[in-house]
């Protein structure tokens, strides 16, 4: 019998590996100075979003790419399809959170296209019919045994749970489509406004093939824009160290001017709430570079996995960006999926005060009357106890007991779970 580990344990183990490597590599670098540089670059993006997007659009158009802007999910999917042949074909895709956000794969599959996710972790969650549970490590919630079980089912042969063997099987499976498909879709890690260049980083080599297919569509958020090439080194450094503890990824692609005979390239710039976020009281969250460090360090994420958040963007930063990028999927009580311990703010490479912003969302929810009933009643009980009088005197021993026996608080948890399902 193979022992299947619990998802939370898988997540915690993987998170600890990442945190350990991150700590070790960061200690060899001028880390705080790099964070300052990266933060300044991203602050520029948030504060001058319209200007930089317009600048990028001009430069990338001049570089021979087609650039289109999409206001929302449906428009983004439409724009992608408008640049493809209407005859369903085989599509190779590299990892992109934005395509998850807009539901592109499902949209294309419904139209008869065959879509291969070609990043290993992303392919695993694709065949399992799941969302990625982390922005850079999609299969972080799974054990090798679970992955072996899934892939054995898909490929119709019994596979061992050795990660090397499983990776080999996936590589073999994806090799032919990667090399043969003429239609590739990718995201982007950064867009350089001054030059119109698209930057994509990866470790496996799959993104190279996706971004060099005869037709290449880049689907990315307008917030990926940065002003200049000089912003790139610090940003790439803090991104890779924070995401995986690597000083740099194996591949860094800087895609420049179109060349004769090269890919026909369309860049779809997705807004979908980003302009609104950048102008909101939570604008600092728009600096996010999607490294996922706030997730692996978060006690709630580690315990519940990314899937608990119900949104494409999970974890502490997800609590802040999901209400703008995926309002319908965001649970109303999402700001309570946090202990406000501040670990996310401490680790964020672009110094987003994540914890303070989550507290602000809680306040907003309270003002709007959206706070879960248990929390509202709890707070009002506490207020009454504080207020004194006969009721206060009666309440205090009860509330003290509540603090002493945390199990009592489970009552609240049960009610909440019922409410959300």
């Amino acid at each position, binding site marked *: 019998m193979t022992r299947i580990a619990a998802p939370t344990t898988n997540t915690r183990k993987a998170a600890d590996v990442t945190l350990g490597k991150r700590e070790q590599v960061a200690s060899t670098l001028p880390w705080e100075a790099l964070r300052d540089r990266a933060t300044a670059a991203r602050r520029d993006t948030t504060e001058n979003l319209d200007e930089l997007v317009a600048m990028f659009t001009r430069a990338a158009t001049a570089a021979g790419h087609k650039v289109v802007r999409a206001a929302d999910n449906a428009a983004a999917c439409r724009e992608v399809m408008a640049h493809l042949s209407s005859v369903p074909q085989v599509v190779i895709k590299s990892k992109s959170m934005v395509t998850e956000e807009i539901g592109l794969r499902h949209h294309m599959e419904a139209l008869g296209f065959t879509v291969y996710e070609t990043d290993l972790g992303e392919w695993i969650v694709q065949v399992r019919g799941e969302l990625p549970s982390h922005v850079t490590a999609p299969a972080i919630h799974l054990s090798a045994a679970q992955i072996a079980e899934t892939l054995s089912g898909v490929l119709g042969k019994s596979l061992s749970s050795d990660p090397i063997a499983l990776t080999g099987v996936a590589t073999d499976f994806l090799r032919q489509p990667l090399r043969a498909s003429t239609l590739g879709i990718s995201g982007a890690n950064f867009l350089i406004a001054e030059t119109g260049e698209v930057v994509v980083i990866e470790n496996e080599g799959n993104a190279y093939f996706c971004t060099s297919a005869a037709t290449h569509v880049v689907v990315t958020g307008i917030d990926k824009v940065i002003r200049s090439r000089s912003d*790139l*080194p610090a940003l790439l450094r803090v991104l890779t160290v924070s995401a*995986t503890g690597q000083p740099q990824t194996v591949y860094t692609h800087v895609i420049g001017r179109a060349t004769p005979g090269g890919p026909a390239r369309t860049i779809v710039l997705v807004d979908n709430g980003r302009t609104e976020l950048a102008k909101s009281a939570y604008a600092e969250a728009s600096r996010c570079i999607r490294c996922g460090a706030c997730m692996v360090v978060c006690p709630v994420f580690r315990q519940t996995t990314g899937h608990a958040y119900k949104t494409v963007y999970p974890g502490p930063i997800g609590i802040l960006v999901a209400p703008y990028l995926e309002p319908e999927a965001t649970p109303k009580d999402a700001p309570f999926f946090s202990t406000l311990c501040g670990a996310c703010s401490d680790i964020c490479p672009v110094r987003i005060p994540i914890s303070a912003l989550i507290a602000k969302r809680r306040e907003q929810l309270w003002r709007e009357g959206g706070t879960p009933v248990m929390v509202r009643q709890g707070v009002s009980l506490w207020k009454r106890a504080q207020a004194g009088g006969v009721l206060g005197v009666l309440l205090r021993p009860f509330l003290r007991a509540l603090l002493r026996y945390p199990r009592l608080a489970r009552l609240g948890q049960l009610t909440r779970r019922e409410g959300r399902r």
Partner: protein
Amino acid sequence: MSAATLAARLIDAGRESAVAVRPARPDEPWPEETVDGDTASVIADVVVAGSAAVVLFGDDARLRPILSCRALVAHARAETLVPEFGDALDRFDGSGRMISICGPSRTADIEKKLVIGVHGPREITVVLHGDIPP
């Protein structure tokens, strides 16, 4: 930074990134770029000493066969070496693509266990030509 200093940094970084660095043999000429079966023998446009990254510029007609190989041998001279990624970026004229290749393709998507060799080359060698004392 002198070529010797850069070469020393390159060798150190190569150890970290699993990139083999060796001097050209006395009888080894400056090669033509070839893709022969499983091995691509290329002229590196830049080599980043600080990370042992081989940087190539150009269009996908050049790059695709190289990225499809199992082994990549990159030939470099003193003037090919630069200290950091930013220096390599400064040399990119913006035409086509700049690709920085820092070690064998890899993944750690299953239980964070490092597996070497996915879709890109799984063996990287940098060959130093000319008067670079490695």
